[in-house]
């Protein structure tokens, strides 16, 4: 019991500290306390994971809704090494982000609200990871999206964050609908949402059902993990505060889609797997290409995140969900590090701008340069995290990317066809990664000072420990040695064996992958060096003039598809529906009423002229007849006798004939 409590304690603590905001809206110590709570939560979670056996166990199975005999929806907590490790990861990064934010948000009047929302997000994420069934996974999945909505729109007075938050929620909702349909399919076919029960049940049903469930889960992941074709909400989500981008839109929430796929691995048919890997590799490539030409430092990182998430999804599709989880974890560290680093850069510029009263966009990399000498800690940690992202040997990204890429080679060998193309695209993306991150590094750190930066250079003061410490920690976690004693071979990773994964790739493919990716990374860095450091203007101009550049800058025009076709189409449809409602349905009712009134008038006319008219005619006629025959009784005795005789004769004639 106490052990169970220990696993749940962090989420309950975080929830409590988040909800206490209702009473502590203005309290000065709220920020510090909630940071400490998350930190403590991390240590508790770490402690409980150390003692955990390798078997999955279910804690707390409760009836949530009872619907009859044997028919109930449950709430349950599933604990295995993967979920508890993910919990520790989320708490760890959340803690660092909290710490970072104490400095980053210190002047914001709504900082208590910010920390409460961060706490609520962390709680929802923990709930998502610990849910033992798809129903509650969905519940927390939605709550995570809700907290993301509120955090992207944290600065609600500005129009762009609000627009971005709405967009993020709505596009996510498409994915949510996918997950909901998956839930309905699972419920109607198996009558249970429990992940552990479904493992045994899945074979009892046909191929189409399994494939449909797989496709619906994929749609869910496409929404939440920003996959093609729904990825364009993620770059917009960068309108939120940078710590939020680091926590939610890089390390944790966007990985929830991947987590869902990893958890549901047993449910996928071969068709579904192919669809997953195609979507994944497309996203990886498109994200990588789009990252090449952005100027907003956060947008570059956002597209890079999309690309890396594509890798993870692709890995699941290739049957290497262990590799995907591994990449998810390494990516969480180095990408959170990069985002917090970007936040630190922005913070430096922002603070300097405030003290010098000069204003320019602190997120535009063209306004930076030469920052390597301004903040050494920032520079070094950023470099290490970038190396992790680029996949340089000895860094964490190399190991995990290697795992996915060798799985792709293995699949290409086994199935050929489309899997060969997927593999090629995987390697191509590995080439793109060092190019775009090299470009970013050159613009931010190596280039000479930009004119705008030069003006405020003297005002820049190094960041405080609250900002530097998380950067250093995350940079450390991006080293390969942290995950594997042999930092160029993921097979020897103690980490993977602890999680109970078995990497089923062959030795030769792995060696080829290592060599290939090293070559590609070096090639990428070299290209980047040539274009930017050597400043080959001719190439640059050629590139800029090409349509490739347009495609890259506009991220394959998916955004304009949304804004120029889908949204106006929907609005036009809705006003059409409104027109029909008003002019057809309601008008029909009105006309029915009017026709009733007309009918009533017609009936009134009929009543007056025909029904009543015939009565009046009758009375008129009888009056006239009475008048006419009244003359007969005029009192003239002779006339009387004549009439009496006439009628007597008439009667006699009638009687006789």
């Amino acid at each position, binding site marked *: 019991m106490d052990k169970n409590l220990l696993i749940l304690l962090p989420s309950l603590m975080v929830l409590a500290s988040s909800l206490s905001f209702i009473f502590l809206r203005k309290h000065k110590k709220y920020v510090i306390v909630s940071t400490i709570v998350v930190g403590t939560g991390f240590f508790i979670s770490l402690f409980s994971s150390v003692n955990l056996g390798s078997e999955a166990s279910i804690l707390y199975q409760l*009836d*949530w*809704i*009872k*619907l*009859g*005999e044997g*028919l109930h929806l449950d709430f349950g907590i599933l604990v295995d090494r993967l979920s508890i490790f993910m919990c520790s990861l989320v708490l760890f990064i959340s803690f660092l982000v909290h710490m970072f934010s104490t400095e980053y948000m210190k002047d914001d009047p709504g900082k208590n609200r910010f920390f409460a929302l961060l706490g609520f997000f962390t709680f929802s994420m923990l709930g998502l990871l610990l849910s033992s069934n798809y*129903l509650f996974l*969905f*519940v*927390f999945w*939605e*709550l995570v999206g*809700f907290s993301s*909505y509120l955090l992207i*729109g944290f600065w*609600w*007075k*500005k*129009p762009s964050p*609000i*627009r971005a938050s*709405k967009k993020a*929620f*709505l596009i996510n*909702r*498409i994915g*949510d*609908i996918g997950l*909901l*349909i998956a*839930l*309905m*399919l699972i*419920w*109607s076919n198996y009558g249970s949402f429990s992940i552990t029960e479904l493992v045994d049940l899945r074979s009892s049903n046909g191929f189409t059902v399994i494939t449909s469930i797989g496709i619906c889960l994929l749609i869910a992941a496409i929404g939440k993990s920003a996959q093609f074709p729904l990825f364009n909400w993620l770059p917009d989500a960068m309108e939120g505060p940078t710590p939020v981008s680091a926590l939610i839109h890089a390390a944790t929430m966007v990985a929830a889609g991947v987590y869902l796929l990893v958890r549901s691995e047993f449910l996928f048919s071969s068709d579904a797997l192919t669809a997953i890997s195609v979507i994944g590799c497309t996203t990886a490539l498109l994200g990588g290409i789009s990252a090449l030409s952005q100027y907003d430092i956060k947008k570059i990182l956002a597209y890079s995140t999309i690309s890396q998430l594509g890798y993870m999804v692709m890995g699941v599709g290739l049957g290497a969900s262990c590799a995907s989880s591994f990449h998810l974890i390494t990516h969480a560290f180095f990408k959170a590090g990069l985002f917090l680093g970007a936040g630190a850069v922005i913070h430096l510029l922002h603070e300097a701008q405030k003290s010098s009263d000069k204003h320019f966009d602190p997120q535009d990399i063209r306004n930076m340069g030469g920052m390597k000498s301004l903040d050494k800690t920032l520079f070094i940690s950023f470099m290490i995290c970038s190396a992790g992202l680029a996949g340089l040997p000895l860094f964490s990204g190399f190991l995990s990317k290697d795992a996915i890429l060798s799985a792709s080679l293995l699949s290409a060998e086994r199935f050929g066809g489309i899997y060969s193309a997927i593999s090629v695209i995987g390697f191509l993306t590995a080439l793109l990664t060092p190019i775009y991150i090299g470009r970013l590094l050159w613009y931010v750190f190596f280039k000479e000072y930009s004119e705008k930066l030069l003006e405020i250079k003297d005002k820049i003061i190094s960041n405080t420990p609250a900002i530097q410490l998380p950067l250093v920690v995350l940079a450390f976690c991006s080293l390969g040695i942290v995950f594997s004693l042999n930092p160029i071979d993921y097979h020897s990773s103690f980490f993977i064996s602890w999680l109970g994964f078995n990497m089923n790739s062959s030795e030769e493919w792995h060696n080829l992958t290592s060599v290939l990716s090293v070559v590609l990374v070096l090639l990428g860095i070299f290209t980047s060096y040539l274009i930017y450091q050597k400043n080959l203007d001719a190439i640059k101009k050629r590139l800029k003039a090409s349509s490739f550049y347009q495609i890259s800058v506009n991220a394959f025009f998916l955004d304009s598809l949304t804004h120029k076709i889908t949204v106006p189409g*929907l*609005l036009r*449809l*809705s*006003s059409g*529906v*409104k027109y029909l*409602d008003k002019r057809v*349905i*309601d008008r029909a*009712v009105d006309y029915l*009423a009017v026709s009733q009134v007309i009918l009533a008038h017609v009936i009134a006319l009929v009543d007056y002229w025909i029904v009543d008219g015939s009565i009046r005619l009758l009375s008129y006629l009888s009056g006239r007849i009475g008048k006419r025959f009244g003359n007969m009784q005029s009192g003239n005795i002779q006339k009387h006798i004549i009439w009496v005789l006439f009628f007597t004769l008439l009667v006699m004639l009638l009687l006789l004939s």
Partner: protein
Amino acid sequence: MASHYLSILLFTPLFFLLLVLALPKSKVSASKYLSLGSASLQVVVMSLILLGYKSDVQSAGFHLISEFQFVERVSWFSFDLGSLGIFKVEYFLGVDGLNITMLLLSAIVFLIASISSFSIQSRLKGYHSLFLLLSTSVTGSFIALDFFLFFLFFEFMLLPMYFLIGIWGGIRREYASIKFFIYTLAGSILILIVMIGLYSSAIDPVATGVESGILSDSKYSEEHIGIVQSKLFANEIDAEHYVHTFNMVYLVDPGNYTPNSLLSTINKSFISGIPVRLIAFVILFIGFAIKLPAVPFHTWLPDAHVEAPTPISVVLAGILLKVGGYGLIRIAYGIFPDGGLHFSHLIGFLGMFSILWGAMNALAMKDLKKMIAYSSVSHMGFILLGLASLTSEGINGTIFQMFSHGLISSGLFILAGVIYDRTHDRMISSYRGLAEKMPLYTTVTVILFFAGLGLPGFSGFVGELLVFLGAFKASDLVPTWIVIASTFGLLITAAFFLWTIQRMYFGEFWIKPEFDQNSIFDLTKREKIMLIPICLLVVAFGIFPSLLTDLSYNSIARFCEIILGTGKLNLELLKP
């Protein structure tokens, strides 16, 4: 145990109505406290009922009088029609899982509405008299188990509503109130037609048994009814001994229909080739669908809502619409299960159509209150969808959705009222960035909007989830594509709610320059008293839905079992 809780519940408002009428002119302002007192007393009585309520299988009710709870049953009036049998109406009240939650909702909504009524300033005496009358008739239509009694209460809702909208309403109140009155009256007439048909077709087996000498006393028992029913089936009872009944529990059992009657399952009566029972179902369905309202019978609703004063909108959306849903469940489906099965595709389709049509309309609305009204139409579509599925999930979802929508829409209409009270303008485009001046109002709005769009953790989610699970499971009754198409309603609903938040509440503060800039202030104490409990309830039922479903799931399981069984059997019998 003879408890009179239901009668007390029913007559409390009438008693307070007398007090209101007796108020001297100088004390007229006290009438609002009397309304509040009546509603609070109803909540207290309702809590007592809940305390004594049993939710086990033995008290599932629905088709057995002995399994109803808090039953009060006396003969109201009856007279001998000679060779046509005996006409009998009962004062018959009772509670089972199908109406207990609705009764609870009615108590909550009337309490909220009575607080909201404090804002009414003119003709207090008239207003509160009508309000109390409305309260009685709504309560009555939920607990009446005699069709005649039900119809009486059902009809009596129209009168106070007509005046409440027509006198205390907005600018186009005359149009709206008369449209409401005539439209829903048309629905009532449809119900009346079927009611007369039912009355002429069905008998009270116990009373008939006594009347014809088969039974010696009127002690109720299962086997006695069986004897009477078999004699009835064999045509051994003279028509003059028939005791015709409006008792809805008896009407459920096809064995109680006289063999030669119009609505009997064994007498094959057709109108142009369609069994009369199916036609009767359609007529009844339309009658209740107008009240619900389902598209295309919904256009009275936006007008009525926009013109009605806030408390009346709260009552209208919160509880009045649910009478339609409740009537569909207990009367249309309960009495004509064959129709429910036969038309399930169509009903499911209407549900989907309402969901999408309502949501699309809401997206196009520029008036906040109209948008909320159309969102109601959309949410009521779920009721039809869940009902069509005839699964435990679907019907539980239907009832939960009715309850949850009652709370959420009450809250939403109060929110619309809050802003209207300040500026007398409901246009979304007249405001921007309200969050700056009205932070609490904005928080409550965000909570209720997200509850409305079905975010987990709020009660709206549970209802929609259960309806979807049920409808999808019943693929033989509701085609899968209908359910999948309905899910897009979730997207559109999210779109119009979020768009409204973006336009009205966030951004730099701005209101139309012609408004008094000082008129914008945050929630008053009275508004908080209404809104905060609603939010808490919506969250509580969202996290612990079993608080509600435990009251009714046994009845619902029984309902589904009987409706499916009897429905299939009847459809077989009705085949030409």
